[in-house]
């Protein structure tokens, strides 16, 4: 235990005295956030062009107004042909058609919301109404967010009909938490990127350096067990990951007003710990492939660039050709960023949380096996 503590302290000392390491692990992600934050935070809220075709007359108008009140939507109304044509041209993110048959149900809903509280029992036989939502399946990312919001709005109305809660309040709450800006989107991506780079630049490269400079060898000549040495190195990096997480989230929340779901913080910590352990293990594996300190710099660049640009942390996965999708779906960073995004800002997510945890765990296992197989203690150069 004494040696574990001393080794941990030694790693921290060596790290905090190394300006270059500090810069890449701490300053670089912050630099990223500030650049993106300044570019995107102002009025640059993400808004979606929503076309509404109201065929239900006055009864539908209240629903139209509800959608108009949502900040994230720029609502245009028109005929079905015009709106669908606009959707095809890419001028609309989605088109909602309120059919004439929905009028009765909607009238019922508006009366309920106006005269609350009343029990829903006597009206429980209200006819069902279906809204038609048109969207471009190629543009899944956008569509999913729009569908998510529409779903919540409609959900609110449904609850109104059954008389559980007042419609309007429920909607507003939903609406504020879904008002997303680019910086909100970006922040979880930057965290995911930093955790990955900690595993690549912050693990593989220093390990090769310790090995080639014979620091590992010298310590191996003492009674110190290799397990203790490895554990101290991993714990130290998890500690850096924790600092990165706190600093980036803190700056995001304080300087750029990024809304972070407080109730999800345990989940955020859990997924960040899983993700960084996985990338640190990957770093151990990669360190075993490089013979020299120069070689490892090249080796880590490959996963760095592939993961960074194909994982959708900076631009939506939908922008990439569909043949690349299998690659995207294989990259652990995609899942880490997606899960962090879902937990931090409650955004519509691409993969389910379970899928993300499973895929990251599978990567961790695979990297663990490879690291044990390839890790080297003796200098190779």
């Amino acid at each position, binding site marked *: 235990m004494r040696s574990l503590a001393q080794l941990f302290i*030694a790693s921290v000392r060596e790290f905090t005295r190394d300006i270059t390491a500090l810069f890449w692990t701490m300053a670089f992600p912050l630099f990223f956030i500030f650049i993106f934050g300044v570019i995107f935070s102002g009025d640059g809220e993400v808004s979606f062009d929503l076309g509404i075709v109201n065929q239900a007359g006055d009864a539908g108008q209240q629903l139209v107004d509800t959608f108009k009140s949502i900040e994230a939507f720029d609502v245009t109304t028109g005929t079905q042909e015009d709106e669908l044509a606009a959707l095809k041209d890419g001028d609309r993110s989605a088109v909602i058609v309120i059919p004439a048959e929905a009028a009765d149900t909607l009238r019922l809903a508006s009366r309920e919301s106006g005269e609350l509280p009343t029990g829903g029992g006597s009206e429980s036989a209200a006819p069902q109404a279906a809204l038609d939502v048109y969207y471009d399946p190629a543009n899944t990312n956008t569509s999913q967010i729009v569908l998510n919001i529409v779903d919540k709005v409609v959900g609110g109305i449904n609850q109104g009909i059954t008389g559980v809660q007042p419609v309007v309040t429920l909607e507003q709450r939903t609406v504020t938490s879904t008002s997303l800006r680019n910086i909100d989107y970006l922040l979880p991506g930057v965290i995911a990127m930093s955790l990955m780079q900690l595993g690549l630049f912050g693990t593989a490269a220093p390990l090769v350096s310790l090995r080639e400079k014979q*620091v590992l060898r010298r310590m191996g000549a003492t009674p110190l067990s290799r397990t203790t040495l490895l554990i101290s190195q991993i714990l130290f990096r998890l500690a850096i990951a924790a600092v990165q997480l706190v600093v980036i989230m803190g700056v995001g929340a304080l300087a750029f007003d990024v809304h972070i779901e407080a109730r999800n913080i345990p989940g955020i910590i859990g997924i960040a710990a899983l993700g960084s352990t996985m990338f640190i293990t990957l770093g151990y594996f990669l360190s075993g492939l490089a013979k020299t300190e120069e070689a490892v710099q090249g080796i880590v660049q490959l996963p760095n660039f592939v993961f960074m640009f194909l994982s959708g942390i900076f631009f939506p996965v939908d922008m990439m050709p569909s043949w690349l999708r299998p690659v995207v779906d294989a990259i652990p960073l995609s899942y880490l960023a997606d899960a962090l995004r879902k937990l931090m800002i409650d955004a519509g997510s691409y993969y389910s949380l379970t899928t993300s945890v499973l895929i990251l765990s599978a990567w961790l296992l695979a990297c663990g096996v490879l690291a044990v197989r390839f890790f080297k203690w003796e200098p190779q150069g």
Partner: protein
Amino acid sequence: MSAIEVSKLRKIYHGVTAVNDISFEVRDGEVFGLLGPNGAGKTTTVECIEGLRQPDGGTITVLGHTLNNGSMNGLKEQIGIQLQTTGLYPLHTVHELLTLFGSFYKHPVPPDDLIKMVSLEDKRDTRSKNLSGGQMQRLSLALALVNDPRLVFLDEPTTGLDPQSRRQIWNIVSDLKSQGKTVMMTTHYMEEAQALCDRVAVMDSGTIIALNSPQGLIAEHFETTAIEFEAQGDVSIETLKGLRGVEDAGRDGALVTLYTRDTPRTIEGLLDVAREGAFQFSDLRVRSATLEDVFLKLTGRRIRD
């Protein structure tokens, strides 16, 4: 009692035999030297004994433990190792490194005691990357002593150091000996082996070609004195070998060495030859034979070639 017993040790790298069936013992409390040129197999031998390399054959017993498959547990507490290259955290100070390494052992020596032992008091808070070669070597010696070991391994402790730094290291090694510790060291400096070692094994190409005390080695191979001079002009080694008392003669460029049993008569003869005008000489000196002469005689080469 022997601190180390090595029997038929063999190590092969990529088909090349680096150490070829060597056997020797290191006695308790002595300073034992492995002497030989670079590539002779000294470091490989020492690292097999330290448990850092797996031998391909033979048995090694260290402080009563027979090594097999790198099981060094317990033994590492009793030995101190200075590797040929000491890799350390560059941004840590001398004191911090000694504290760190102390934490790896059950009974560490206080860092400041070690610092005093190797005279690094004024470098106590200097980062290791800012130490000079000699200071770094003294730090690495201190690290080898952090557990107050019974047996200390030093692999070329003074290579590349200036004479003053070398002398400091020699003093520390002499102190270790007077504390009753056993020291096994490698070196390719003849004068170092001669100054420090109780016994020396001369290694060349993976084998031990001679083993004795430095004086013993010299006496074993030379009952003679060396007469050296710089020769100008044509001189036949055969003529010189014919001088009275000369046992052997060698020539290295202009430097001629005559090994003689009868120094005055040999010099007399040398003067006669020179007077006849065959050649001229300068820088005449008479010295007793050294380990360098032993190595030259055994291998036909000088050790630093």
